[in-house]
Structures are given as C-alpha cells and as structure tokens.
C-alpha cells in the first residue's frame, strides 16, 4: 500500500493523452456543476426559511383593529394623558390574551363631542425610544437623544433636533357609545422624514 504524504506525491498518475482532453474537460465541468448544486441547494433551502419575515405576506400576521383606550370622562380638557394600549398580541406561534402592547398620549382640546381627541403614539420617530410627557414643561421629551416635541406633537428645534419628524399621531380615532375612545394602534418606521406605517 502506498504511503504518500500530501506534500510529496510519489506515484503520480501518468499524464493524460491529448485525446482525453475533451473528456477531462467534460468531467471537470460536470464535477463543478454537480458539486455546486449539492453544495448550494441545502443552503438555499435554509435561506428561504430564514427569509420568512420578508417573504411572508403581512396580511395574515397583523390585524388592524380599533382598541378601547379610555372613556372621555377620564380625560380633562387641555391636559395630556398617557394610556396603555391593551390588545391581543400575536407573537410567532403564541397568541396572548389582551394585555399591554404599547402606550399612547391623549389630549382633548374641546368638550364639543364632534372634536375628536388627539392621540399620539409614545414611540419616538427618531429611533424608537419611549417618549415621556413633562407636565411642568408641557413638552414630550425623548430620554434617548433629547428629542423634544411640543404639546401638539410638533418637533421643537427641527433644524438641530435628532428626530426627523413630528410625534406620530394616530389618525383612526373613534368615539363609540357616546364616551368611549377607540383607536387603531399602529407602529411607524423610525429614523426617516416620512411617516410610514410598518
């Protein structure tokens, strides 16, 4: 039995004759193609699954339904309130019973029932930290990069402030049964000037 170490091949195969060259080329090409297939197919099978978040249609994941936030009696005119948003949360395979999934700020400017309250998400449009409302300053302040918003949600110092836009207002607001505030809660893409729902 030949004991050859890889560095010093001893009994080299004889050189191929010219007539065999075409055959050798075919063999080489086939070996590369088939080797490529067997190497890449398992990887593709895995990658396709990995791309699930992009390939899956959004429709069957998220349901845009209004949730009850508070009753109007709890909201004094002119003040800003923070309320938890309680809703069913679907997390991959888990379907959680209604519980807090986020928070909104609510402000009522008039007791005219036709004037709907203003509702803002608490998520900073900059990079997604949770915005705090400072009663004494009458401003929304983001704890992360000092983004500051006026009481009506507009960005303070837009030239120098880090956030790219005003605080995101939730527009699907509805009063049901005379005094219940219902809102469709949404998340928006952060870091860009345009307000685009995720």
């Amino acid at each position, binding site marked *: 039995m030949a*004991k050859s170490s890889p560095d010093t091949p001893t009994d080299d*195969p004889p050189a191929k004759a010219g007539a065999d060259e075409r055959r050798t080329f075919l063999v080489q090409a086939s070996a590369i193609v*088939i080797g490529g297939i067997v190497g890449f197919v398992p*990887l593709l099978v895995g990658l396709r699954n990995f791309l699930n978040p992009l390939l899956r249609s959004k429709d069957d994941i998220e349901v845009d339904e209004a949730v009850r936030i508070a009753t109007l009696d709890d909201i004094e005119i002119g003040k800003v309130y923070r309320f938890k948003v309680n809703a069913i949360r679907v997390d991959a395979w*888990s379907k*959680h019973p209604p519980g807090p999934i986020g928070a909104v700020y609510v402000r009522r400017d008039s007791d005219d029932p036709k004037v709907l309250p203003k509702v803002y998400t608490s998520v900073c449009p900059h990079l997604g930290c949770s915005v705090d409302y400072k009663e004494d300053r009458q401003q929304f302040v983001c704890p992360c990069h000092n983004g500051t918003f006026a009481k009506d949600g507009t960005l303070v110092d837009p030239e120098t402030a880090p956030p790219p836009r005003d605080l995101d207002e939730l527009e699907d607001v509805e009063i049901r049964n005379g005094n219940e505030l219902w809102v469709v809660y949404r998340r928006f893409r952060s870091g860009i000037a345009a307000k685009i729902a995720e």
Partner: protein
Amino acid sequence: MNQLLLWLDDRTGYKGFVRDALYENIPGGARWRYVWGSTLMFTFGVQMITGIFLWMGYSPSAQTAWESVYYIEHQMVGGSLLRGVHHYTAQLMVVLIAIHLMQVVIDGAYKAPREINFWIGLILMKITLALALTGYLLPWDQKGYWATQVATKIAGIVPVVGPWMQQLVVGGSDYGHHTLTRFFALHAGVLPGLMIVFIVLHVAMFRRHGIKARSPEKRPAAYFWPDQVLKDGVACFAVLLTVLLLARFAPAELTAPADPSDAYGAARPEWYFLFLFQFLKFFHGETGEIIGAIVIPGLVMGFLFLMPLIGRWKIGHALNVGVLGVVILGAGLLTYLAWNEDNVAAYTAEGAFSGVEGKLTAIEIEKRKHRAERTENPYRGKNEREQLDIYFKAQGIEDELDDFLARLEKYKAYKKSQEHLAAVEEAERNGHRAQELAGQGIPPAGALSLIHNDPKTQGPKLFRRHCASCHDHVDAEGKGISLLRPLVYEVDKESGKLKVADDGSKIPLPNAAPNLYGFASREWLRGLLDPQKIAAHTIDTDTYQVRDAPYFGNTRHRVMREDEGMAWYVKTHLANLGEEEQQSLEKIITVLSAEAGLGSQREADEQARADEIIGDAQQNAAILSTALGDFSCTDCHRFHGQDGDSAPDLTGYGSRQWMIDFVSNPNHERFYSEGANDRMPAFHKAPNDPNQNKLTKKEIELLVDWLRGDWYEPAK
C-alpha cells in the same frame, strides 16, 4: 484577477490547500465504491446547514418546543421542506454509516496502519446515533417524548451510576424544560462540536494513509480531481434528491404535543433503533434488562473496537467479517420482526380468524346465557384455557383443541397488531387535530392546553369513561360509541327464579339509557315522541344482548303504568293523532328543539323564526301548552313560566347550561325530583367541595360541548 489570486496565495498559501485537497492520489483510479465517505461528509454538511437554520426558529422549552416546531412546519415559508430535509438526512446518515462500516470491514481497511482511524470512525458512528436520539426528542411531540423516555430509562438501569446518569441527562427526575435545554445543547452544540473534531482527525488520517484501494494494479492511478470528485458529486446528488423528494412528498411527522397524562399506545423508537427495541422483548426482569439493553450491545460494540486486533490473527479477518455479517443480519431480522409484529394485521385478510373469533364469541354467549337464565355457569371462575377445555368438550370437538390453541396464539398476535395500528391511527388523528387547533394561535400556556380544552378530542374519552356504561352515542348508521349490553332478566326476589310476565315471557331488566347522539335535535325529539320508538328495544336472544334501545326502552321509564310517565303518555296519547294534531306535534318539536340552540340546527331554527313558528318565550310556552291527547307538555313540565312540576324543566332544554346542570345533578328539583330519576348519577353535585364530585365542571363542559357538536373546526 490573476494578480489578486497571486497576492492571496502569497499571504495564505491557499493554492497548496487546494492542490492537496484535489490532487490526492488514487491508485487504480476513481471508483464508485469510494463514494460512501464523501456522502457521509455531505450529509453532515447538510445537517449543519439545515440545523443552524432550524435553530433560528426553534425554542427549547416544554411550552414552546412543539409550538415553535409547529410554527416552522406550518407557518414559516419553506419550513416544512427545511425540517423534512433535516429529518430525512438524519435517517439516511444512519444508513450510509452502516454501508461505510460494512465496506471498511469487508475490505479489511481497519487493519494496520489504519486501526486508529477505524476507532475514530466507530466514535463518529456513536456520535451520529447520539445526535439521532437527542434530535428525536426536540419537537416534544408524543412520538419523540415516549420513545426517548425508554432510552433514558435504559440509561437509568445501568448498575451503580445509572440513576445519576439518567438525572444528569434528563436534567432532573422528570422530563421538563431542562430535559429540552440539555438535549438541545447536546444536539446542537456538544455533539456536532465533537463530530467536527473527530471528522477532522478522520479525514486527516485518511489522507495520511491514502485510500485502501481495491485491485489498484488493474487500472492506472488517478488524482481525486476530477473523476472521483464527479463520482462523489453524483452520489451526493442522489442523496440530496432522495431527501428532497421525501421531504416534499412525505413531510416529517409532528404528532400531538407531549402529554404525560395520555396513554400513548403508538410509542416506538425511530426505525433504525427498532432492532434494539425488539431485542429487549426477549429479556425479562432487572438483570435481563441490563443484559439485553447494556451488556450485549456493549459486547457487540466492544467487538467492533477490537476488530483491528483480531484482524492480525490468521483467521481474524474472516471472523470479523462473519461477526459483522451476523450482527447486521440479526439487526435486520429483528427490525423485520418488530415491524411484522406491529403490522401483521394490516395484511391479514378480513375473516382470516373468523373460526377462532366464532368460537370465542360462542363461549361469551354461553356465559351470557347462563348469567341471564340464572343457570349453573361452568365457566365461572375458570381461566381462559379451562374455559376452552369446557367448551370443546361440551361441543364434542376435543380433537380440534390443539389446532385451535395454535390459531389462538396467532389470533392474539393479530389483535395486538390491530390495537397497535389503531393506536398509530389515533396518534395521527390527534396530531392532525393538534395542528388544526394550533392554527387559531396558541395560548402562552402551550398547545397542550388546546388539546385538553378541545371537546372534539376529550368528549369521546370522557363519554367512554363516564357515560358509555349506560348511554350509547351512535348515528343512524350505527357508528359511534356503543358497549355490548348483556341481557339480564328480572328475578323474583323470594323464589330466586326468573320473573315471568302474564304472557309467559321473561322480563328483561333495564340496564341502559337513551342514545345521546343528536340529543335535543328535532330528529332526536321526533323519535322520543314516536309511540313506536320511545320504549322500544331490540333484544337478541341468540346472543343474549340488548341490541338497540334508542330512548327509554332499556330504562325504568319504559315501564307502562296507568296514568303515569312519558312513555305511557307517548304510547297512549300520541298513537293516533289526526293531521292537525300531527302538525301541532311538529311545531312543539321545532320550538322545543330550538331551546337547545344547536349549531347543527342554526339555519333550520332561523328559518322557523322567520316563519314565525318560533316566537318569544310567551308564544313558545303557548305552543307547548297545546294539548295532544288529554295532556299538554306543560301539564307536567315547566316551560318559560308554565309551571308543570312533576317532570324535568324544559326551559332551555338541551342548551349548554341546561345540560351542564342536568349532568351535574339530575336529581335536582328542576329535573328528576323525588325518585323519578332512574339510575343517572349526579356528576357534580357539590360545587363547593371539589373532592366530592365525579367530574369537574370543566370536564362536564367538555362533555356537553361534545354532545352538542360544539367545537372548533378550521374554515375550509
């Protein structure tokens, strides 16, 4: 480009690696028989790749393992294919290892100087089997859970250290979160890590020794590249194609979530461990178990390890090949036996055992007859063999007994197989149902709670256990739950002899209750109010059983007494109704049945409401107050303010709450008060003292929902 490659080679020397890898010398040239090692490398690569991607979707805990695998399999894009490829490649890997091992032994490639590499190969085989075993548990489904239980219990019987080993592997004394986290760490971390180390050693040593060539003198030598590479590639391609087709057309199974409280009848290891499973059937008791499960497999493995040493001996090689042959053939035979024991019923012709069954049934009928007729029962207290002796003697066919006993053995094996196949079918059904339920979204407590709260799954089980001894649940075709009800005649207490009616016939003792299939539906009520059916029963005196008694025919309510009881009323007053009265009866049925609010009748009920047959409570009460014959329903029954009080309250009859209340306590004054109840027990009469109740409230709800046909079905 060339410049760049040169630069790269200068820094890394990659060309040397490539040359070493591709220009390995193969004496005698490329051959198909050299592909097996490469296919094994390939399958390991596939498992690494698919395994890592599965890892991204998998969550190891008792409440999330099954759930995340369900999600991969059914909700994620390409998840079923990914899991299928991993599943089938694992199985193929075991097959390829067996082939590789056989080839190495037959070719004598374990001999000097390759002894150490042979041992490394055996270690790799053990790691592969350990990977297969640990991976089988990870989905945390019934199949994996129960099969793995056996494996860890075997670890537990190892003398002295067994119990500790078992606890270390299981992560405690019971299966739970830590069993999964440990198995997962082994499966995805420790074992693949070891595998890589040993594969590197295996390949490095293989390159050092070169290939063990087969008749190299016949053909010129050649390099690994390109001929052998192509052959290896084609072989790997065949493996890949096999796996892809299997994964695509026979997706990896996912049975119901692991349920320690369930009697899982289909427990079997994966097919490549079946021979060990079968082998264990031959051993008995603690010592036997240790010999069968540990000592003998250990000796076989020990022999494999000693092969290089035995091979030095003159006849050593022949012995090695012989022993391996015996082991492989033996394993094959055991696998076949295990498979055959489980599946023999599937290919046994129907009626193949009609002779045996006929005789066994005849003996049963004899026994029933003696019991019913109160005659001396020679079979009482005798075991099976003695009973057969008695029967064959009585029939004067003693000479057939030996043949019969031989057939009986086969028949028992057949019945066992039948039970196993039924258990497998049930496991498949439950698995399917679990996945159906999971489609609604799984509560944080896990998918098992979906099964435990599913009337469709739990209803029949509860019914069998608590109701079926009296009630049937069979549809018009006779399918459903129905136990055999032996015929029993009424006995005169004083004389101890059978009572005889005026016409000379014996009086069968009521021993059952109404068929509850479709309870409170219009169809069901139509039968109840049919003079031909309410007290009917079919007695089969040939086989001594009560075959059919859909309503009160096999209860005390059937007994006709003057001026009393539902059966009396229906039989005497509803027997000759005029056309107008017949219509009133149909109205009563419609109105009463609507009280149940059955899902199956929703459309019919709505139609009746639209046609103003069903109205508000007052109108409905008026309908039930219509006299048919001399009486109306409400003369005896309470119904929406009409207060008859000698018979069960019909307000909300057949509704969920009515049924729950009735099952909880039929003796309540709303129902059968003052001894009017026949033998129906109260299943939940002490709401404030849970330990006193036969069934929990939840169980009764599940039963009632099942009876009402009220369970989740996915939208088609």
